[in-house]
């Protein structure tokens, strides 16, 4: 029996290649006097995607021959961590980058199985503070303005 879901990856790659080719075909063309005997800006990405499509065809052939096992779904910590990246985005944009880091680090510690809340809290507060000091005082890097950094920078 053919395992249909293993073809999801080649299908995705093929669609991706066609989308890139379609977008590349919309790119502007330069006048002959600039390009001369060289290539238009669209040519190289299109060439790459044609190569990609050939390789995808070979991949499909390999899958058809070898029938690799479908990959099981990930556990909650993996999906949870990705959701935490979104939480980090929202908190950084609307509050402060360091609030985002603190919240995400704390939740990540807990999500990954740290049962001692005080350890998670300490990790989430001390690490960004130390990194902030290092980058701000030693490497002289200014961080984006937010609720906490406004207090620090004044």
């Amino acid at each position, binding site marked *: 029996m053919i395992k249909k879901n293993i073809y999801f990856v080649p299908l995705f790659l093929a669609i991706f290649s066609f989308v890139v080719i379609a977008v590349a075909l919309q790119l502007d063309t330069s006048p002959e006097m600039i390009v001369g005997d060289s290539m238009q800006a669209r040519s190289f990405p299109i060439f790459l995607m044609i190569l990609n499509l050939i390789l995808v065809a070979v991949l499909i052939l390999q899958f058809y021959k070898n029938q690799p096992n479908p990959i099981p779904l990930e556990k909650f*910590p993996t999906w949870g961590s990705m959701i935490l990246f979104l939480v980090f985005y929202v908190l950084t944009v609307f509050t402060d980058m360091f609030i985002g880091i603190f919240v995400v680090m704390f939740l990540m510690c807990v999500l990954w199985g740290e049962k001692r809340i005080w350890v*998670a809290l300490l990790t989430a507060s001390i*690490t960004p503070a130390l990194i902030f000091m290092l980058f701000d005082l030693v*490497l002289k890097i200014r961080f984006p303005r937010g609720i906490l950094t406004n207090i620090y920078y004044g």
Partner: protein
Amino acid sequence: MFEQAIGAMASVVVDPYLLGLIFVTTVLGVIIGVLPGLGATTGAALLLPFTLTMDPVHAIAVLATIYVSATFAGSITAILINAPGTSAAAATTFDGYPLAQKGEAGRALGIAVISSTVGGIFSVLILCFAAPLLARVAYEFRSPEYFALTVFGLSMLASISAGGAVKNLIGGIFGVWLSTIGAERVTGIERFMFGNYELYEGLHFVPIFIGLFAISELLVQSKTVDKIIKTVAMKAVKLPTKEDYKKIWKTILRSCGIGTFIGVLPAEGATVASMIGYSEARRWSKNKKEFGKGSIEGIAGAEAANNAATGGAMVPTMVLGIPGSGTTAIILVGLMVHGLRPGVYLFTEQVEKVYQIFGSMFIANVMFMLMGLYAAKIFARVSLVPTAILWPIVFALSVIGAYAFQGQLLDVWLALIFGVIGFFARRFGFSVAPIAVGLILGEMVETNLQHSLKMFDGAWWMILTQPLALMFLIFAFLGLCGPMIFSWITKQKK
């Protein structure tokens, strides 16, 4: 030239700041190496933003030290807990862990330390002699030769990791495509920017690499939160005895040669070197039956080869701008960020800096030997840091590091996006190293193709009339199709 090289290398010893930096980085490299999942590549990606404000030599010395020390340190956990800290130490588990289970963990580590140091120092010496010679050859290169060379480098991606040739090449092509994002260099036409002018100069390597290597590894490690680690007791690291040396010296020398040669090949790295070093040690051994049960030749073969590959991989990186592995791709980015243009220029205009970097690598090898011999037991304990604490710290370092590169939040989002892309790529059996190497080589291959076409008035086939270019293209063809042709011939013979 020779005196200048010796002088520059010796200057490292009398620079207390650089020595201190190498010492601290070696400690950090060993810690990174023993932490499962945090290999040399992830470590270098995380440290890259910290080096931005440093002097170029110091910055590259830091990255190179991380490379050599973390590559070695992977063997500590490979021997003590059967979990290679880096993929390059995977072959060390075959005999290292069985020997440790027999109660000889100290001896196994001693063999690993000495073999790694000899391998590392051997490759640095080869690097010192081979790199300037290769640079002289590279002096003759024009656009067609560079184009063919980058095609050869990209073809070698087929075997950069265990993902399979086709998947690696798809990854490489994706990386090359990423390099086309932004304004095209000749015409200025915007490609795949979708109105985002922060991408006008293209995708910057630093946030992409942090995403591909550090964030994606974080997501991969999230699958191992329930993993229970069994440790093996160890009293102290033992130096090999005379009998041991008699048994392994030939293996070490062979693996030094193998490792350095494989390292020099574009896109091949320490992991491939250690596997071949191990299998060759077994092939030439008189005690084949001991392999897999705690053979010291097996440990020496794998360890000498993986550390010899570090120096070897620096040759194409510094001379041709073609990285030999994921870690050297990051070192190459470090060179570029600090205005050290890899290639002939580096070996003619900035010889002193080049040899200072080589000298730093030499000292790093000696330092990790001392640490391996006297502090391996302490470092091994670091591997027991709970993942629930370690990886949130990696997250913080990654996002702040990505931001610090240019002071742009876009870089942080790019790091996170590429972390997720890298994770899904790995989940479906694609390695991220070809994407990184493709991204670096992408600009080179397109620009040199454009220049070649202009040189020959659009007649692309004229590239084949250039002897060196033709040679590289034949190598690329053989690299891609050689295994298929060979297996077809073997089938026909049968």
